[in-house]
Each structure stands twice: as C-alpha cells, then as structure tokens.
C-alpha cells in the first residue's frame, strides 16, 4: 500500500480515486474553505453545501481528508512534513517544491488541468465530433473529459510507482490534459491523414457501421449497431418485418446500406416506436443483434447488471438512508471496499498524530490558521 498525497482538481481527483480503488492510502489535502471539487454541482439532496457535492462524494470516496493550508507560514512546513511520509504526490496546483527538497524515491505527478472546459474541448477537436449531424456541436456532459484525463494521469503515476518498486527511484510525471483530450481524436486523425476523409458529427445516426443509431421507442431510446456479416441483413429485415426492406435484395450490400441509411433507419424507427426499451433490446439480443438501451443516470442507479456485478453497492447514508453507491471499476474487480468520502478535515487529528504532533501542538496549529 502506497501513501498518496492528493491535491488534484477534477482530473487529479479521479486519478487518486483510482489509486484509492487499488487499496492505497490517499490523503486529500484541502483548504479549510473547501475546494473546487467540493463546489462542483449537482448536489445530493439539492443542498449546495461543501459536504453534499455529487462529484465530491464519488471522487473522494476511499480517501482521508486533512485541511492543511500550505499558504500559511506554519502550514507550509507541515505540508512538506506530510510529503516526506508519502510515496507519491498527485497535484493539479503548481507547488514550489524542488526535487532536492523531497526524498529521492518520491513520485510526483503534475497535472496541467484545463481552466476552461468548453474552450479546451473546442480546441481539442473533440467538439467537432460531438453532436447531431450538421447541428450545434455539444460539450460532452458530466465533466467527463476531466475524469478521462484523470485515467491517463493514473496510468502515468502507476507506471512511476512500478519503477519505484523495482529500482527504488522516484521521478516526476507530467500530464497535460489538453494533450490527453487531443489523443482521443486519433481515429479522425488517421482517417484524415491517410485519405483526407473528414470525420463529421453523426449524432444519433450512427458511427462506424451503416445500420446504427439511437432510435425512439415507447419509453425513451434504444441503440442498434449492426455489422453487416453475410446473412445478417436478411435476418434483420425479417425481425423488423418491413415489406420494403425485405423486398429489396440490393439492401444487403454494405455500400447500398450506407447510401440508403436514412431510408432504412426511418423504416426501423417507425417500427421500433411500438416497443419499450427493454422489450426491443431483449429481443434484439436474443436474435444476436447488438442492441442496448439509451440509459439515463437514473436508469443506471437501478441497473441490474451493475447490481449483479457488485458495481453498485447498497450503502447506508446517515442523511439519505440506503443508496446504491458506485464502487468504481477497479475497486469492483479487486473486491476493494470504499469508505464514504470524508468530511472536510475529518482526519486532521489522525494524520497529524501520524506525523508525531501532540493534541496541544495541533490546537496551536489550528489557531495559526495552518489547519
């Protein structure tokens, strides 16, 4: 088990959550007034409070919290002392710590998080790929792009910790979130550089395969995405039961499917409206057509697959009662328990005790504003 000091914003906080999911001791160093992660909405119970942010509750689960203020004369040496006990630091803030000031085996990950989410998304090229065909381009929701960059930072930190385990050597890891975002444009980059093809937004009418799209049904939307293997088109047309689709043998060719995509999808749409998500998806899967629901976050909070696999674990919350808590993908696979996110400074006494501070010293530090 490593000890990780966490001063991450949204991306860094997901990187360190992954480290907590791996069973490491992650200590979140937070300003006494709360940080941006705690202020990010929406809020559980709709209470805009530092202890109620949905992002805080997910991202800081499994961590300990200490409210050291490194910007005070007494807080800075205390922070450095904490760093001396650590195996890694993951930070999205620039801190004036030189390699000479730290142990040779310390892993130090600097994440350059983007200041402006929407502008960074526009610069990265991802905006040009997200949204409806010819419609207004859209930002990916839920601040997803920060979490996605956070996994890259976790990969870099884990690689450096692996080196440390073998050689005893620490090092600096640098992660630029803007670069991370741009790597996710790689398919469009390859298409363009090889053939000049410009990848466009295709919204709910499919990505790579001809027969693919998100279509309305009785209680929402479902997705069908079909690779054209021999004989599959006929089976698909038979399922849809549409005379026009069954009656035109030319439609079995991949090229014709692409050319007549809108016609085909309109026929499928007219048919699928009569079913619920679960009716049509279950039947599609029974017939081996890649089908899925379009899930809302509320659907996912009740999702049978996530429950069956233990990704959602029933947790007793003192304020909200029993809630299904998202354990996290790495915690689930390792069977790692995740403690609820800490209250601000919840572990001050415990962590200062580990640093050898007495209660009296701690109270004195609190009075200076360092805690």
């Amino acid at each position, binding site marked *: 088990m490593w000890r990780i000091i966490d001063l991450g914003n949204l991306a860094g906080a997901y990187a360190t959550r992954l480290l907590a999911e791996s069973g490491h001791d992650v200590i979140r160093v937070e300003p006494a007034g709360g940080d941006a992660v705690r202020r990010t909405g*929406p809020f559980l*119970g709709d209470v805009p409070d530092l202890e109620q942010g*949905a*992002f805080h509750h*997910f*991202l800081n689960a499994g961590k300990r919290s200490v409210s050291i203020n490194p910007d005070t004369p007494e807080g800075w040496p205390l922070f450095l002392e904490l760093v001396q006990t650590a195996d890694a630091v993951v930070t999205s803030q620039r801190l004036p710590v030189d390699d000479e000031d730290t142990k040779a085996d310390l892993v130090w990950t600097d994440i350059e998080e983007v*200041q*402006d989410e929407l*502008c960074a998304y*526009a*610069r990265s090229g991802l*905006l*040009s790929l997200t*949204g*409806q065909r*010819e419609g207004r381009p*859209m*930002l990916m929701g839920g601040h*997803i792009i920060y979490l*996605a960059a956070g996994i890259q930072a976790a*990969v870099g930190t884990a*690689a450096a910790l*692996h*080196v440390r*385990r*073998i*050689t005893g*050597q620490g090092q600096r*890891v*640098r*992660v630029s979130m803007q*670069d991370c975002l741009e*790597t*996710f*444009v*790689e398919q469009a980059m*390859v298409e363009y550089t*090889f053939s000049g093809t410009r990848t466009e937004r295709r919204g*709910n009418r499919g*990505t790579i*395969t001809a027969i693919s799209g998100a279509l309305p049904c009785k209680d929402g*939307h479902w*997705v069908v*995405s079909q*690779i054209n293997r021999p004989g599959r088109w006929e089976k698909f047309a038979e399922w849809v039961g549409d005379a026009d689709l069954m009656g035109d043998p030319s439609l079995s060719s*991949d090229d014709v499917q692409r050319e007549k995509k809108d016609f085909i999808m309109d026929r499928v749409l007219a048919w699928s409206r009569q079913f619920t998500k679960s009716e049509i998806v279950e039947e599609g899967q029974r017939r081996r057509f890649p*089908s899925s629901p*379009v*899930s*809302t*976050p509320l659907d*996912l909070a009740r*999702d049978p*697959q996530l429950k069956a*696999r233990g990704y959602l674990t029933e947790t007793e919350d003192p304020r909200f009662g029993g809630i299904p*808590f*998202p354990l996290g993908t*790495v915690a*689930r*696979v390792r069977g790692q328990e995740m403690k609820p996110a800490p209250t601000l400074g919840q572990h001050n006494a415990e962590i200062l005790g580990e640093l050898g501070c007495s209660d009296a010293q701690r109270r004195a530090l609190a009075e200076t504003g360092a805690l």
Partner: protein
Amino acid sequence: MNPDHPPLSGVRVLDFGHVLAAPFCTRLLADLGADVVRVESSRHPDFPWPSSYRHPDGRHASYLNTNRNKRSVSIDLKHPAGRDVARRLAVAADVVVENFSAGVMERLGLEYASLKAANPGLVFASMSGYGHSGPRRDWTSMNMNLQGAAGLMQVTGAEGDPPTAISNSWNDYIGGLHTCYAIIGALTERKATGAGIHLDMGQFECSVSMIAPLVLFSAVNGRNPERMGNRSTRFAPQGVYRCAGQDEWCAVSVHDDAQWRALAEAVDEGVPDPGLAGDPRFATRSGRMRGHDEIDQRIEAWTRALESADVETRLKRAGVPAARMRRVQDLVENSAPSRAYREMDEPRVGSMLTTALPLELSASPLPPATPAPCLGQHTQEVLREWLDLPANELSELAATGALI
C-alpha cells in the same frame, strides 16, 4: 531493471485483442516499454470491414496506429496444435489481454482458471462489453451501444435533445485506459506477493464510472440531473456560437462580471441595438443565468457575421475565454500542430502520424515508435525467445498448419 529503461521493460504481454479496446490497451502497455505480442491468424483478419486505406498485406490505417510497437505471431486457434502453442505462450507471459465475448477463451481452453495453475503470477485482463458475469454477460455490443447503455448519450446535449453521441470509439479508449491502469497496479503488487489476478473489466462499467457522480446524484435525488448542453452551472453565459461559413463555431465562457462587460462591449460594437453592456438584467451572474436564452441570441447575432478565428481573436484580446472549434485538419496542419501526434517511419507508407502517449516521465524514457507488424512477422522469433523452442520443433509445428 536498469533505471534508464522504460517503466514496463521486460514485461511480456500476450495480446488476443481485436479491433480496438484490447489492442488500444496493449498499445499503452507497449508505449510504456512492455514486449507486446499479438496472437493473430490469416483465418480471422482483424477488422474485416471496409477501410479508407488498406495495404496489400491487409493492414489498414487504424491498425497501423493501434498496433505499432508490437510483434505478431500467427497462430490458428481453431487448430489443436495452435491452441497448444498459444497456451504455452500464455504460460510464459506476464500479462494476457483479451476482448472476446464472455466464454470464448473457455472454448479455446485459454481461460484464466486453467492458466493460473501453470502460471500463478499471470495478470489476465478480460475486456468484454459487459463483463463475464451478470444478466448481460452474453450481450453483444458495439461502441455505439455502449455510448447509449453507459449514459454518455443521455448526459450530453441539452434538455429535449435526442441522445447525443460522439463520432469516435470513446468506450474502447475509456475501457483500454482503465484496464491498462489496473494491469500496471497488478504487476506492481505481484512483485510483493507473487500472485496474479483475473481483471474482469467490463467496458460498460468503465464508461459508467465516467458519469458515476451523476448516477450517485440520481440514486439519492430520485431524478435525472438536468441536461446542460453547452451551459455551465457556474458560469454564464457559456455556449458554442455559430460563425460565418459552413459549420464554423466559437466557444465562449464568461467566468466573471469583468469578462461579461468585455464580451457585451464586443457584441455591442458589432450589433449595437439594443445594447447588452448597459442592460441591468444581465449585470450579475444569476441575472445572466435567467436571461441565458436571450443573451445567446444576441451573441450569435454578432458571431454569425464573423469568421470563427476572428471571434476568438477579438474576445481573447478583450480578456474573454474563447476558442474556435478546431477540426482534425487544424490539429495536424496548423502552424501549431497538436503535441498528441508524432511522425513515425512506417515502411508501408513512408511515414505517418501516430498517437503519442500524453505523459512525460522524467527518469524513465519511453521507447521510440516502431511500425506495426505484418501478420506472423515474429512467429519464429517469439517462439524461440519465449518458449526456447528449438528449430526442429518449430518446423514440425509449422508443418501441422497451426501457424497460419
């Protein structure tokens, strides 16, 4: 390990992956210095669909980017001798990665439970769509299915919009990155314990984690969060505005009152009537949140007459965060090309751009990019290195027809 070596040097990875999720994951491992060997066969070409570029050797453009820095062995897994040699390679490996449907590795006799006895330290990563257990274990899925099932399409876009997708293989990247992280952690842990692990990473769960805060919100609040489109809960106005020309747009995000005044003055200069800057309704953030629709219309009345680059320049000069929408051609051709891509010598085409790992490690140099292998290019070499197979056994094996 020499301190000047890449982080994963000496780690042997056997890659049974196809198309993207698993091959993307193993590319990350290769970028970190692992010895990645792909198990391939002419009987089952990877990515049998049309592609905008395909070399006579069958390799297509995306393959060249996804499988660089790897070696290839050709083994027919339908052949008993092929399965046997694949098994011996898996026993000699540190890591196995596969993204078959659940049950396929069992049918090949290559499942974790049976390999574990012979190779207790093996780290075995499975990356099927929904994982190897649960009611959807056997569901088939493509990238777009998972964009829908894991909630991405429903949290993207504004209230009332249809589900909104992204035109890339988002789930393969997110699944690949999570699995790469989990594999490195397992390798480190193994140094202390000697024990391997089966990492049954469903791509679905990896993608759900990306919106887990919103899932938690819905679990507690009993309703869905608002679909925000391009707006922010913290800043107003924020949006993507249409500019002059075909599909030209500029993103604008106003963080404080000073930026608002600067934006309003720029808009008023172009479209003076009625003035935005002096409108008392919009002086505060909460007022701008309430009047967001009207503000958006007024901003767009100004931007749509201007080039997107012009809007960006004017606003940035005035201190307002703004960025025109860049496309892939801007990332690769522009005077300031993306650092995410790097030129690589590739004999099939001379040279090509390939994705770089967006990480710098100060003490562990990352290996230079080498071109993707031809099918079976390294069969003999790898069987010799990993299995100490003498030449006569190699030719006997080849004679069975299992190495195609």
